[in-house]
Structures are given as C-alpha cells and as structure tokens.
C-alpha cells in the first residue's frame, strides 16, 4: 500500500516537517512494515530561474555547450545573474527553468557545488526531469511554462521550485499483513499513524474537508424507490451469506468528458494507480481513501433488478480483463434481473455493463461480500483485483453507504451530475461479536504490567466499545459471603470490536492490540527455565558423527536440491521397473525437467560434482547427508480444518499418507586421492577409496559390516559391493560408476560413488558398546599364501581363514593377490597375514603353527585352497 504523505495529512495531524522516513518508522512500530520510500529526495535551493543570456560555445570534443546567465532573483544572495553551463538546447532567452544552486542535493545524494567546467565556473545546474527524478528525459531541461502549463503563470525568478514541481511530495510504501484489510486504505493507515504517534485523527468515512472546511459526510437513508436489489444466495458457504449488504446510488446527467481533477489524478498516481476517466478514478479514489471497493454501471445498460446469486453450472462471463471464464457454482455473481451476469461479486465486473465515454447516468454499487467467497473465487479463477484483495481480508461492513455517498458527492462536484434521491441499502449485516476479556490477560500473556485503565484505554483508542463485566454475569460471581464479587466482575471486560476490525475475534487478538499500541519495545527480556532436556537424540548425533568422519576422510559436504526428472533415472541406468523410479511427483514443479522428489541422493549429487569440475576443480570428493522420499501406496491425506484436534483415526490417516523419508548419506569422488608433488607420486581415487569411506562411516559408528559382491545400477557390474549388517540387512552400496553412467552424467571415467541408508546405521548403532580388557602378551605373526580358484571371492576365503584360525587369531589381513603365469589361468594366489595373541600367555611357536595350519586346512576344505 502506497501512502502519499500529503493525503495522509488530510486524515491525521502529521506534524509539519515530518519526513517520509519518520512516518515509515512510526508505522513500523504498530506493525506496518516499510517497503519503500518515494520522492522527497531533492534538497534546495531549487528555484525558478529566468534565462537572460545563452552563449553557445563549440568545444574541442565536437560538443556545443551553452554558457548561460540566469536570473534567480535573490536566491543566490546577491541578486546578480548566475553563470551556469548547460548542455541542453531546448530552451532560449526568456524561458523559466528550474535551477539548483550550490548546496542543493539531487536524488542519489548528488551534491551540487560551483565547479569549473568548459572554461567557466558553473554555479549550479539547470535541471532535466531525469535529474530531478520526475521522468526519464535527460536530453532536454524542464521549461516550466511547458511543464506546468497554466500553472506557470505569475512565476518569479528566485521562487522555490520544490513545491512547484511536487518534489516535496513523499510517498511511503508499507506492507499490509493479511489480518489488516482496513489498512488497504488511507483511512486505516491514518488511524494506525494516530495510534502510533497520538496525532489527532479525522475519519474520512465521517468527515470531508472541502476547501479547508470540515463537513460531515452524511449518507441518506434507504428509500422505497431505490434500485431493485435482491440478495438470493441459496448456497451460502458455511452458512455465511455471500453478500450481506448492497447499497446502490444513482447519479444522472454526468458529463462523460469531464476531466479528473488534477489533485485526484496526482493522488491516484502517487498511490500507484493510473488515472483513466472521472467515473473510474472516483471509484478508485474512494477505495484508496476509505477501503471500500465499489463498482459503477451504466444505468441504461441495466434492466434491473440486480440479483446477487451463486453461479449455475455452465454459466460464463467475460471479465473486464477480456478473459472469458467458465463459472463455478460456488462463485457469487452480480446479475441483471437474475439472468445476465454482470460480474464476479467482489472480484471483477464484466465488460457488458461497463461505464463508457458516453455514459451519463450511473448506478453505483457499494456492497459487503463474504471474505471466504471472494477468496475462493479469486483463487479459482487466478484473478486478483484491488477489490478482491480488500474483500478477502475483510471490509468494514458499515462503510458501504458512506463510500457511496462520497462517490456521489465527488461525481456531482466534478462530473456535473445530480444525485438521484433513490437509495438502496439491502441486506442485513451481523454486528461484531462481543469478546469476554479478562483484564489481566495482557499482563499474563505479555509479561508487562498493564493496569486495568491502560487496557481499557488502548482498547477504546482502537475503536472498541468496552464495558465492565461479562455480558451475562455468571451467578457464581457473587460469593456467598458477599466478598470477591467486585473482584470477579472487575476482572472481566466485554469488548466489542469496531466494524473495521473483523480480525478481532478472540481474547489474544485483544492482547496483541494492547501490546502493540503500548509498544512491543516495553516487553522485558526474561530467559525461561526449561525443565532440562536430554541433549541430542542418537539419530542427530549419528548424522553429525558421519559428517565429521567423511570430512575427516577428505570429502566436502554439499547440499543439493532434491528435485529430479525421469531422464536422470535413465542416465543412472535404472531399469524400467526399478523401484527407485517410483518417486513423489510435484503438481507445480519449478521446472518440468525435474518434477520428482529424489529417491536416492546419488540422483542429484553428481550435479554438484559436475559444477565443481566445470569451475576448474580436478579432484572432487563430495558427500551429502539428507532425506530421500519413498512414496508409499498412493494415499491421500485428509485435511481437517483449523482449531480442532482430529480424532485418532484421522490423525493416523494423515500420518500414514506422508511418504517415508529416510536419511541417507551419499558420496561421489573423482580425480586424485593423493596428489603428486615434491614428496613423490600421486594416486588416483579408485573404488577402494569409496569402499573405504563407506567403512569409515560404519567404523565411526562402531557398526561391523559384511560385504557381498553385487550388481546394481548405477555401478560398474564388476566393481560394486553391497554392505550389510551381520544379520544381512542392507546398509548400502559402494563402487565405481558404470562406464555408461559416467558418460550419461558427464563425469570423468572411473568416478566412484556410494550411498548408505543412515536409518539402518542409526538403528544398528543405538546400543552401548562393551569394552573388554586388553591383553598384555605379545602378538605372534604368520603369513600364508593360498592358491584357489578365481571363482572364490576374497571375502569368502578370508572368512574361512578366520574361522579356521580359531580363537587365538587377533586379526587377519589380505595383503597380496597374485594372478599370473606361475599358477593356472583360473587360479589366484592370496597372501594373508595372521596375527595371533592370547589373553593369558605368550604363545608358543607350536601353538601359532597349529592355528595357522588349521586356517589353511579350513580354507582347503571350504574352497580347495592349496598353500603355496
């Protein structure tokens, strides 16, 4: 909402000299946040000058400048002509021009001083509209006789040009929150300004100022011969009538050519609306002034009566924005005689009954519509208008006759028409519901001690009617002993909000009014004492630990958007029936290329890898920890309304419809794991790194892991391992990306990746690790080399060795693999280092050899392994 200060001053006593910045600060205090300031950024002296001499001087750069002598009266303190260099050529001797003198400031904080230029001392500047922030013409300066027209008559050199050009006019733009519909008007803003500053307030719905004189704005009572209006809402929403008040007035004999008065056009422009024609401008002006949207019909295009009803199936309407719309039975319509649709109530009129440049007699509509009805129609047709914006936030239901009266007066004054005595005021509005309010509630809620008088004062200031006691005094309020009754009734107020505050419906609403009018800056700072929490949950600690472990391994944490498209599933080589293609789809995605929620982090993490490579990075190792979304059966979640706890079954249904969103961790890496340098050779990141990082995650959580050679997209079929818990539960997969995937994603060959289900790790690590005493006896080592068929996996052979070596084995490590000429083509030789240790003694060579032989024997039995 734009608030021209000059307009604000008409309704509130804004102290002289108050700047837009100050007004904005005053409005912020009561909850109207500043969105912008317009105008008011030129500081004088900016005066009227008369050009006395113009001497063109050709410059070396080919440009011709004018060396001017300008009469600025006494404004320069000497009365002598002012010498000014000017590059424009659209003026001549005798013209009146705006001149800014040294010491003045132009928009953009551009300070003017006398300066030497083109061989002269130029003492000021003759201004263009661009320089003054009045337009975008930079080539020509403003010639006041052209700019002001008749308004330039009688101007004297030296006169202040700031008010002349309207440069003293400031407009403050504020953000109006959805509960404060009444602040979409100067009436509401001025009231709030008055609440903030204590400035006197004049309600423009009750009083007009004409030629400096206050006069009451009095609407006549309805007459029997008013234009016919029938309110026929047969399907009210939630029992609320779509239209509960409909006022009409008629003005006849308007001059269709009558111009909009300049002051009104200026105010409209400053408030951000374009002047169009007198009838439209008056309607807009009254809406901005009072907050009541109205509509003007060409009386001769109406057969009457006006019937307000819901739409019928199949009805259509072409609205003023030239869009033909199919109407919904919930839409509330204004119709002519019940048949011809004139407009969508409270949203937008139709083209057929619009006032035109031949209209002389108009019917003015000022009505009150149900916010919900208007909101739904506006949303349904994706049609937001100045009217719908106000109606859906709630318009003062007492305002319609006053607004219509103001329109009539303005039309008569400026359009030469006559007010018709016939007045309609149909419908029945419900008065605001009184609120029973404990006077102690603001203190109890805000933590500031508000005496009863202060509470009452504030509520009355904002327009509430306050009476002592509950509306219906409870019988038990009178104590048996006759004491305490005063206290009980003293503590209760009955508060009836003013008609312009439909947002005030509950006691906390009134608490906010007391707190904000008294000032939020009065609220002290008190740290509450929480009962003491249990710290982070196990799951939260796990995620931190995993992140720290991976960063410690040299990976960088990133966050990627969770949106993917089907083509990414193709890139990753997912089969047509891969369950990971079954993703939650957005109805309104930002991009049609990515309408799905990822089902694995590896679907989006490569984007970050590619971005880094694109920006010149060579060695990239990234990880991400986030949730993925796994759709369940397509279930819909019920959406029960506000303010009531759904019953357990409904709540269960809501919770069950929310897709499962487990936490995952994923890694992708390419480039060097170790860089070459003066210390020696480097080493490329390979699949052993990523399998190692996956283990680092599990190690950090104390979860022991088993491995299975695996084939799974998007991995290389021969270079992928599935990690599992000892009970076989899958933790995730790690490996090298499939060469086709690498190509499709545009990442380097041999890029490696892993994705683990953190939920599995969280559950598996949620136990207390048990310590055991450490042996003080020395270890004994022994190496074995086993030749075995290549069909035996390293892991299986190692497990056999471990099992065979028995309890004395402390650890076993595969340290070499040989495949080559010295053994058969289908054979491989694996070398293991075994470490033995006993808790209670130093092992003898015989014991170690026996355990080693047992390991070899077990490997032989399980896999046909032969010791080399």
């Amino acid at each position, binding site marked *: 909402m734009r608030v021209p200060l000059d307009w604000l001053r008409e309704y509130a006593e804004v102290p002289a000299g108050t700047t837009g910045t100050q007004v904005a600060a005053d409005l912020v205090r009561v909850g109207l946040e500043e969105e912008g300031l317009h105008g008011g950024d030129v500081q004088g002296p900016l005066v009227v000058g008369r050009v006395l001499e113009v001497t063109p001087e050709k410059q070396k750069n080919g440009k011709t400048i004018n060396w001017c002598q300008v009469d600025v009266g006494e404004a320069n303190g000497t009365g002598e002509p002012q010498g000014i260099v000017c590059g424009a050529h659209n003026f001549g001797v005798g013209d009146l021009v705006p001149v800014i003198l040294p010491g003045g400031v132009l928009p953009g904080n551009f300070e003017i001083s006398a300066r030497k230029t083109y061989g002269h001392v130029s003492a000021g500047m003759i201004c263009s509209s661009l320089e003054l922030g009045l337009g975008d013409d930079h080539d020509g300066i403003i010639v006041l006789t052209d700019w002001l027209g008749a308004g330039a008559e009688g101007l004297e050199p030296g006169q202040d040009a700031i008010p002349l050009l309207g440069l003293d006019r400031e407009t403050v733009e504020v953000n109006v929150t959805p509960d404060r519909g009444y602040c979409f008007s100067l009436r509401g803003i001025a009231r709030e300004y008055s609440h903030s500053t204590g400035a006197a307030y004049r309600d423009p719905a009750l009083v007009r100022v004409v030629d400096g004189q206050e006069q009451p704005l009095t609407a006549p009572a309805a007459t029997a011969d008013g234009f016919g209006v029938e309110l026929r809402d047969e399907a009210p929403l939630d029992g609320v009538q779509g239209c509960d008040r409909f006022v009409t007035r008629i003005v006849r004999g308007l001059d269709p050519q009558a111009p909009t008065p300049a002051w009104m056009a200026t105010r409209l422009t400053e408030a951000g609306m374009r002047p169009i024609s007198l009838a439209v401008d008056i309607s807009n002006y009254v809406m901005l002034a009072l907050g009541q949207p109205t509509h003007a019909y060409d009386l001769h295009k109406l057969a009457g009566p006006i019937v307000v009803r819901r739409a019928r199936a199949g009805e259509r309407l072409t609205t003023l924005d030239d869009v033909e719309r199919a109407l919904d039975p919930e839409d509330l319509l204004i119709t002519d005689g019940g048949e011809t649709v004139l407009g969508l109530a409270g949203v937008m009129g139709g083209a057929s009954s619009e006032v035109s440049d031949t209209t002389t007699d108009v019917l003015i509509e000022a009505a009150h519509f149900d916010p919900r009805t208007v909101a739904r129609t506006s949303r349904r047709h994706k049609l937001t208008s100045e009217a719908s914006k106000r109606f859906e936030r709630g318009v003062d239901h007492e305002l319609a006759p006053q607004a219509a009266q103001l329109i009539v007066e303005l039309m008569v004054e400026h359009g030469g028409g006559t007010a018709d005595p016939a007045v309609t005021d149909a419908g029945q509005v419900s008065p605001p519901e009184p609120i029973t309010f404990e006077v102690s509630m603001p203190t109890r*809620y805000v933590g500031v001690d508000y005496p009863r008088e202060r509470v009452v004062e504030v509520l009355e200031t904002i327009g509430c009617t306050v009476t002592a006691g509950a509306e219906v005094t409870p019988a038990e309020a009178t104590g048996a002993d006759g004491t305490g009754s005063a206290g009980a009734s003293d503590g209760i107020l009955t508060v009836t909000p003013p008609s312009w505050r439909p947002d005030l419906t509950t006691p906390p609403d009134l608490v*906010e009014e007391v707190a904000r009018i008294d000032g*939020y800056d009065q609220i002290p700072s*008190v740290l509450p004492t929480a009962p003491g929490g249990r710290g982070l949950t196990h799951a939260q600690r796990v995620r931190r630990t995993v992140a720290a472990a991976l960063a410690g391994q040299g990976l*960088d944490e990133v966050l990627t958007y969770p949106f993917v498209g089907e083509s990414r599933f193709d890139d990753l080589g997912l089969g047509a029936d891969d369950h990971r293609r079954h993703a939650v789809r957005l109805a309104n995605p930002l991009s049609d290329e990515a309408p799905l929620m990822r089902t694995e982090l590896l679907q989006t993490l490569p984007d970050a890898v590619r971005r*880094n490579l694109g920006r010149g990075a060579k060695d990239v190792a990234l990880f991400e920890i986030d949730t993925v979304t796994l759709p369940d059966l397509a279930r819909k979640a019920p959406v029960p309304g*506000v303010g009531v706890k759904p019953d357990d079954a409904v709540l269960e249904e809501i919770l069950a419809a929310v897709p499962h*969103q487990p936490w995952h961790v994923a890694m992708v890496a390419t480039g060097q794991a170790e860089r070459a340098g003066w210390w020696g050779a480097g080493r490329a990141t390979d699949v052993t790194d990523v399998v190692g990082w996956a283990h680092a995650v599990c190690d950090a959580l104390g979860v022991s892991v088993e491995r299975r050679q695996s084939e799974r997209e998007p991995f290389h079929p021969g270079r992928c391992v599935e990690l599992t818990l000892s009970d076989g539960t899958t933790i995730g997969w790690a490996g090298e990306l499939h060469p086709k995937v690498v190509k499709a994603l545009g990442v380097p060959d041999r890029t490696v990746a892993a994705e683990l289900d953190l939920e599995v790790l969280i559950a598996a690590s949620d136990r207390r690790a048990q310590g055991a005493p450490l042996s003080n006896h020395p270890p004994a080592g022994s190496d074995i080399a086993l030749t075995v068929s290549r069909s035996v996996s390293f892991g299986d052979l190692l497990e056999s060795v471990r099992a065979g070596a028995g309890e004395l084995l402390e650890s076993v490590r595969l340290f070499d693999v040989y495949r080559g000429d010295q053994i058969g083509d289908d054979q491989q030789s694996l070398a293991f280092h075994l470490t033995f240790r006993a808790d209670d003694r130093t092992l003898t060579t015989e014991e170690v050899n026996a355990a080693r032989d047992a390991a070899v024997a077990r490997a032989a039995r399980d896999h046909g392994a032969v010791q080399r």
Partner: protein
Amino acid sequence: MSGPNTNYDPVEVSALDPEQVEANVADALSAITAATSLEELKAARIAHAGEKSPLALANREIGALPPSAKAEAGKRVGQARGQVNKALATRQAELEAERDERILVEEAMDLTVRPDRRPFGHRHPLTLTAERMADVMVGMGWEIAEGPGVEAEWFNFDALNFDKDHPARQMQDTFFVDPADAGIVLRTHTSPGQARSLLERGAPLYVAVPGKTFRTDELDATHTPVFHQMEGLAIDEGLTMAHLKGTLDRLASELFGEGLKTRLRPAYFPFTEPSAEMDFQCFVCRGDDAECRTCGGTGWIEWGGCGMVNHNVLRACGIDPQRYQGFAFGMGVERSLMFRNHLADMREIIEGDVRFNAQFGMEI
C-alpha cells in the same frame, strides 16, 4: 717376527722392547687422531689394535718370556693396548657424533610450502550453522525435534490455524504433491514441527526444529526454493512474550555477538497471536552508524517471525489453552549464516562449490 724358541735361551724380542712399545703406541695414537671419518678410524683400528697390529703381536710374545720377565712385559703391553683402545673409543664417539649431526643437516626438508598431498574435507557451513543454533537451544535445556520435508497439508497449514481460504495460505508459494488434492505439500516452514511435537510429546514442551523448507521461488541472490529454518516452540504454564524475548536475546547473543539484543515489531502470522517480526541488533554498528552497509543504517537486521502460540494451534494438538500458553519463533538458517559469516550471495550456499566450504573450518 720371532722364531721358535729352540734352544731355550730366551731371546730378548725387540717387539717387547719398551721403546718399541712406546713407539707403537705413539703411532697408533697419531693414526687415531688423524682419522677424520669412521672409515679411517676403522682402518686405524685394524692397523693398530687389530689381531695383526704390532701391539697384538707384542702381546703374543709375552708367553715366550721367562716367568721372571712376563709380569713386567705383560704390564707394559697391557697398558699400551689400553691406552690405544681408549683413544679409539673416544675418537669413535667423536666421529659418530659428527656423523649424526651431519646426517641431520643432510636430511633436512624445506617444509615452508604446504604439502597438499591429501585433500582436506569440510563440513558445509550451513549445516554447521544449523547445528550451532541447535546447540544453543540444547544449552538452554531444549530438545531438538524433526519433521518431514514432504509433509501433510494439515500439519503445514490447518494445524497452524491457516484456514483453507485465508490469504496467508495463498501467500506461501507452496509446492503441492501431485495430485494437488493429495493433501501433501513440501513444507513451507518448519512450523509443522510445532504441531507434530505437541501431538507426540504434549505439554510442557521446549523444542527447536531445524530443517529443510521449500517455496516456489526462483533462485537468486536472496531467494532459493529450498532453504532451511529453525523453529522454536515453548509451551508451559505462565510463559509470556517476555520469555520469548529472553530466548531470542540469548540465541542472538550466542550467534552474533555477546550482548546483542533483539527487537520485536508487530506482525501477523496465523499460528501466533500476538505476533511479531524479530530483528537482531546490527553486530557491526550496533545502531551507531547511519551509513552501515550491513544493516543499511537502521541498526537492526530482520531475522524471522515469532509470537504467542495461537489457541487454535494448541486446540488442534489437544492442548488446553486455559492451562498452557507459550511462544514460537522461526528464523532462516541461511540468513543467520549470511549475516554471521558475511556472505553476500545465497547461491553460493546451495551450489556445492568446494571453494565455498574451504573458506571455513569444521567449526564456524
């Protein structure tokens, strides 16, 4: 050299001659002293103390002496050999010390350039910021709760008193899950965590809910469709807006600087009443610089929204508003990070450029 003693006429062997022994000792000592390396010393040892050295040979002659001469010759040769061995040991120690010192010098490596052999990883500053914010709350005795990003519409709106037709619900720029009437949205704020926590845990309750949130904004320097918030909710008997302010002051002071205050401005949110926008005091100028670039000269920086929890929210969660009341607040984690760590462009937070992370340590 001596011949066999055939005639038992003891021959006075010249090797045992005192002068000869003395000369041998002198030769040995001078060779030892002259040795400048362990190799030279080794040669001197072989020559003068080895099995075939003059003194060793002289020692061998002692056995041939008559008993009466044995003692004296033995003493003479023994002392001589002792003298030589001692000199050898001393020189050996000297040369070894010299060698050790030389090796240290020779082995020296210039470490004045960082050997960037293994890459160093980093946490993302945004998650670190969220963790730090959560830690401040934990320090105040609060717990950290979570909720899903893909959320039931009821939790995101209705439970929070956003009526279906209320303009505020339309202003949220919501992503809807297909079909649009599925009743599932991407949560537009972390506030559904309020309702979930209240339903799960009941009152009294002090929880903070950090998490990912979504709005249909295009990415630019100050907007991103995916962002993070932290919600706070305290429900107890007797909680007031003063407690809200106290909590915010503590959080602001922990995040942005000791003693920094917050300011409340009247505002509107469906799920709180009274409602407020909250600003924190500019940590650069503290309101003392009208030209301050961080706060634009206002002395305050917008942080988020807050207020006393609306009765309808409590009712929707089965809490009796006559008994319990409390406050809620929510602020952007990105915004907190940007101001705390002087970032100008939100895009850097979400792009995943490793250079961005590298500006920060694992603790920010």
